[in-house]
């Protein structure tokens, strides 16, 4: 399965990645190769094989509903690129 330049442009937009013309070309080639390689799996006969929803054969792992201490606000906000005394500050997103 070949990946087109348009595919890469769409995925880059969804991932909010800005790619140069050269990068777009390179990605189109690389991703095509990766997807073509994975396509090998299509040769396997999966008739009657139950689809796998998860990589590990474990289920029902729960935590009890108990409150545990949260981070102090100062610590929570410590790494924020922008902040005030209460919260994170981000560029305006109104109408976004």
């Amino acid at each position, binding site marked *: 399965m070949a990946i087109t330049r348009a595919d890469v442009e769409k995925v880059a937009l*969804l991932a*909010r990645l800005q790619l140069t013309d050269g990068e777009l070309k390179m990605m189109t080639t690389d991703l095509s190769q990766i997807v073509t390689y994975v396509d090998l799996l299509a040769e396997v006969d999966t008739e009657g094989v139950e689809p796998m*929803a*998860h*990589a*590990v054969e*474990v*289920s*029902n*792992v*729960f*935590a*009890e*509903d*108990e*409150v*545990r*201490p*949260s*981070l*102090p*606000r100062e610590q*929570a*906000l410590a790494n924020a690129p*922008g902040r*005030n005394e*209460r*919260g*994170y*500050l*981000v*560029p*305006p*997103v*109104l*109408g*976004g």
Partner: protein
Amino acid sequence: MSTPYTTIIGLEVHVQLATQSKLFCGCPAQFGAEPNTQTCPVCMGLPGSLPVMNRAAYELSLKTAVALHCEIPTFTKWDRKQYFYPDLPKGYQISQFDLPMSANGYMKISDDKGRFEPKKVGITRAHLEEDAGKSIHDEVTGKADSEIDLNRTGTPLLEIVSEPDMRSSAEARAYLQELKLLLTYIGVSDCNMQEGSLRVDANVNLHLETPVGHVATPIVEIKNMNSFRAVQQALDYEAKRQYRVWQETGQKLGDSPKQTRGWDDATGKTMAQRSKEESSDYRYFPDPDLVPVRTTAERVEEVRAALGELPADLRTRLTATHGLSAYDADVLVNQGPDIVKYFLLAAETSGDYKGACNWVTQDILRSVKEQDVAIDQFAVSALQLAALITAINDGQLPKPRAKEVFELMLVDRMDVAAAINTLGIEQVDESALVTLCQDLLRANPKIVADVQNGKHQAIGPLVGQAKKKNPNADPGRVREICLELVARGE
């Protein structure tokens, strides 16, 4: 149908589940804390942190899904829904995509005023997901930075998606009221809309019969409705708007992408927001950090058995078994579980459902509202109300004086016996009443003459005088006896 179109409505409701802690971490899920004081590496999406499913959140979801008559698959898993927004710190929301925990349920709705026929509204699915944080925007200029509060990030939400089965804003409102009532009865959410515990998005479009055949208008999703009343208004507005746009442009379903519009309470209009990204653009894939949940048919049956009486069942029991009118049953049940518990205790103890219903829906509800107290703090307990009803039914307390007794119980917190005593209420035997009436008639020959001439209402003043002479005299009985005596010429 008075409109040239049919309105097709489906609703998406998000309810916050009543857990102590968040869905995937131990941070408190309570509303109202100082911003960013209820976060940890898991809900902030810091690298290396891992989510673990809150057992109570899953159990509450299961309970709700069963109450909504959903099918519960034995296997369910969680997926990542990727999109970028500043209040979504991980860059994805943990939600459910292709294998939700429940699907294909229904809820019945009806209208006590008969504005629409009772119907079943299909529930497409109900799935468990995490909430995002809160953005506080600069509403004035839109230019200052937005502030982000992550306290709400990761609180458990159940998304309940209905089929597009509703045909009017009144049906949509009834659906929301019944859903809220059901969720409150089974105690899975406080459903507080002001605090965001219950949020509604509506999908609406129109179907029209035209000379060229059946036509549907583009589907619009309405957001930002903060009350059931707002939902109803927004749907009414949107139906009219879509009809107008269709007349102007002739645009049909599929001609334009699905549009999202926000409801503005102040102007009473919906305003266009961004066009919705295609669902495949969320690039859902199974979350490798969470393991799936398996359940069994036996477990689902246990949950069903433990549900208790749901609002719809209770209405049926009150009308079918206890003789209440559909209207009365509806009014009572719609008051919510606390009032109903009070009513049921009073009704069961006194054995008089109709009497208990009258007291609760009239005097009790009014007094509770006036005093602004919770029913379990109310001066007259359910057992005291039962005693009051029993006193009336046993003839110890004449009905016309019951309100006075109730007042003393309410204001002075007396029990029924003390109140009856204080008021000096005692039964007046029939012969004493007859004597009283005879005396009154003898003293008022003019009234007797008027009554003989057919003016039965002339007897009124005598009833008043009788009450003055003996407060225990039953006015209705006094009237009857007087009229009878006059008729017999005594």
